[in-house]
């Protein structure tokens, strides 16, 4: 069976403050002259390799796992799943 690379990005819901992103933007980027930067959100990236018969199945499996095992916390976070290919 082929394997697929799947990226899972976990970040705070848009309504919830992200102090890490705010500090990176304000104290590193903007303070050092990159005043064009208008937003930064810090996130966690999991690079997953999964065995599946096709990319749809790979995405379905990873999505189910993320919900079941609380890979992200639905109270405060959103998670986006992208299949990069075999």
């Amino acid at each position, binding site marked *: 069976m082929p394997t697929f690379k799947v990226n899972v990005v976990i970040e*705070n819901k848009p309504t*919830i*403050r992200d*102090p*890490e992103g705010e*500090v990176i933007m304000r104290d590193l980027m903007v303070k050092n002259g990159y005043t064009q930067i208008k937003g930064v959100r810090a996130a966690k990236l999991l690079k997953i390799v999964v065995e599946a018969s096709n990319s749809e199945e790979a995405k379905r499996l990873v999505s189910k796992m993320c919900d079941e*095992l*609380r*890979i992200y*916390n639905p*109270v*405060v976070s959103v998670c986006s799943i992208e299949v990069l290919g075999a």
Partner: protein
Amino acid sequence: MRIAVIVFPGSNCDRDVHHVLTDVLGVEADLVWHADGSLSGYDGVILPGGFSYGDYLRAGVIAAFSPIMREVRRMAEEGKPVLGICNGFQILVESGLLPGALMRNTGLKFVCKWVNLRVENNETLFTRRYSRGQVLQMPIAHNEGRYYIDPEGLKELKEHNQIVFRYTEPDGTPSERSNPNGSLEAIAGVCNRRGNVLGLMPHPERASEAVLSPSGSTDGLEVFRSMLDLGG
């Protein structure tokens, strides 16, 4: 009365809690390894502080899937006292036994200091020896203690009197300064509706002997005495 103190890989307050229970209060307590299936024969359970599974992925989430949590859930459903301290609180919210979430401190730093806490609800199994509005001194030591819950959840917490402790000034008034981690409404501890499951970020076991406290506070001891329903 026999209490189980659960030990996860990375727990580090298990022995402190065990010491307070056995040496200070003289009750029977055991350290129970999280992979050892059963909690039958115990009247209460404590999830201690620490860094279970190195806080990997998110503080408490991996421990929340440990086999022992089925037993902890059963005891919660039976109405027995279930106490989560610090990482134990994080495990309880990750396992869904308590509502809300604990996020990284707004200051982005690990905060270790003594704080003032106001008792908001003295009708839980853990706070019945306090009076409502009483201000306690206990230490905190955490990086992920910023309590969050969505607006509907907060409304429900208030409706069912589930906010148990708030961070305040020494006189009991809330302030920006006295909130050490950015918790919503300065919430430091919450319980389930029934009042038999409590989670709090501060460490009552570190405020149970005068010799270990800069102010001589033993305020934390009453959490355990309440839980054990000790008279006197």
